[in-house]
């Protein structure tokens, strides 16, 4: 335990990007196979990253640079906090702050595509943030603390007690991974270009590379969050997270995109209600 509390955050910091990049490469390969294509090599996200890093730097304004660095650093900080076994609520707010920085960067430019992408990103945050925060509260009601380290030592997996919250987190996972029913802000699919690249439009060169690497860290974060639902033994949680990842790829490839209204309806009426209902049996002596 004592060795891992030091080692886990360092490993998350070092391995977060390579693991996230590989997952993204596997994502592109599997998606291509589902569409009957050969697909790019597994290492393709790394080629994209290094190419973007070597491109000429064109910046619209200096504020954007600060926001993109903040986005990167805060998401990495959230991942490190999670692996340090710190307060789950704090971790989620740090992640949320990172997401808002991305929007602020998009808003700091006059491009209409970037602005609209920013608005849509705000709606995405509005959709997934309540699910994640309420899930943290549900976990608190179940085990009596927000500490991630306590979830790891609680002795019982959370999934049998919080199955509805788990389903709600899957909805949040789709939004956070920018997968197809809900990839409205960033047009993560290269074929979806009605807002050019949405919130990413005005980032170029190595600042876009930073956004790519932040996406990898974010991916590892959300999958680690899913894995918390079966934290003892942790390898089952990791397998569940990977299974959810494959499920997301499947959903991504079979579904068309929805509008932001549908995203809000599904995440609030579906997701938030599921978590709230799941809280009832564990909120016993609380009110």
């Amino acid at each position, binding site marked *: 335990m004592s060795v891992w509390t030091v080692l886990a955050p360092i490993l998350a910091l070092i391995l977060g990007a390579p693991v996230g990049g590989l997952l993204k490469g596997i994502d592109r390969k599997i998606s291509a196979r589902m569409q009957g*294509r050969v697909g790019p090599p597994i290492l*393709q996200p790394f*080629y994209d990253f290094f*190419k973007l890093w*070597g491109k000429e730097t064109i910046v619209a304004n200096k504020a954007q640079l600060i926001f993109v660095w903040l986005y990167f650093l805060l998401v990495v900080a959230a991942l490190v906090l999670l692996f340090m076994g710190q307060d789950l609520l704090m971790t989620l707010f740090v992640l949320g702050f990172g997401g808002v920085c991305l929007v602020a960067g998009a808003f700091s430019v006059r491009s209409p595509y970037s602005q609209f992408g920013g608005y849509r990103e705000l709606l995405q945050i509005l959709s997934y943030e309540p699910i994640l925060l309420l899930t943290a509260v549900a976990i608190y009601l179940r085990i009596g603390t927000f500490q991630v380290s306590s979830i790891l030592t609680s002795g019982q997996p959370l999934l049998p007690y919080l199955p509805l919250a788990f389903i709600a987190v899957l909805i949040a996972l789709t939004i956070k991974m920018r997968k197809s029913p809900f990839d409205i802000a960033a047009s993560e699919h290269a074929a979806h270009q009605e807002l050019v690249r949405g919130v990413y439009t005005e980032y170029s060169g190595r600042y876009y590379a930073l956004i790519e690497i932040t996406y990898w860290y974010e991916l590892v974060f959300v999958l680690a969050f899913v894995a918390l639902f079966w934290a003892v033994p942790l390898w089952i949680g990791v397998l569940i997270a990977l299974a959810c990842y494959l499920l997301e790829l499947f959903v991504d490839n079979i579904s068309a995109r929805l509008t932001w209204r549908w995203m809000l309806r599904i995440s609030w009426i579906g997701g938030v209600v599921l978590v709230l209902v799941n809280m009832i049996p564990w909120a016993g002596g609380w009110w």
Partner: protein
Amino acid sequence: MGLISASRVKSPWILHYDCGGCNGCDIEILACLTPLYDIERFGMLNMGNPKHADVLLVTGPANYRNRRVLKNLYEQMPAPKLVIAIGTCACTGGVFHNCPNILGGIDKVIPVDVYIPGCAVRPEAIIDGVVLGLGKLAALGK
């Protein structure tokens, strides 16, 4: 060859702009994205954003109206970048040659790296032309 220029060859992101041809070449470009040709296996993605693109694919002839747009798109792309003229119209003006509103090939407006003639260009020729240009792209960076 360093890591970055090696990656550059493996990840050419595409911006596709139609100067006002007959759409024949555009359909052939889109055919490259289909499962039959699948250019994503070379890491090529149709980005639709000049700020993320490495390769500008242009179809159709340059005229007095679209030259500003073409120049604007070209200038928004961060270096190193590549311009590929696709189809006879983009190369020389093609059937529109000597029309009063036509300047000629797109090389009248922006520097072109690879010319792919044909009416319409076959997808194999487009892929071949882009691969030809990639060698130049790798050399540009160093």
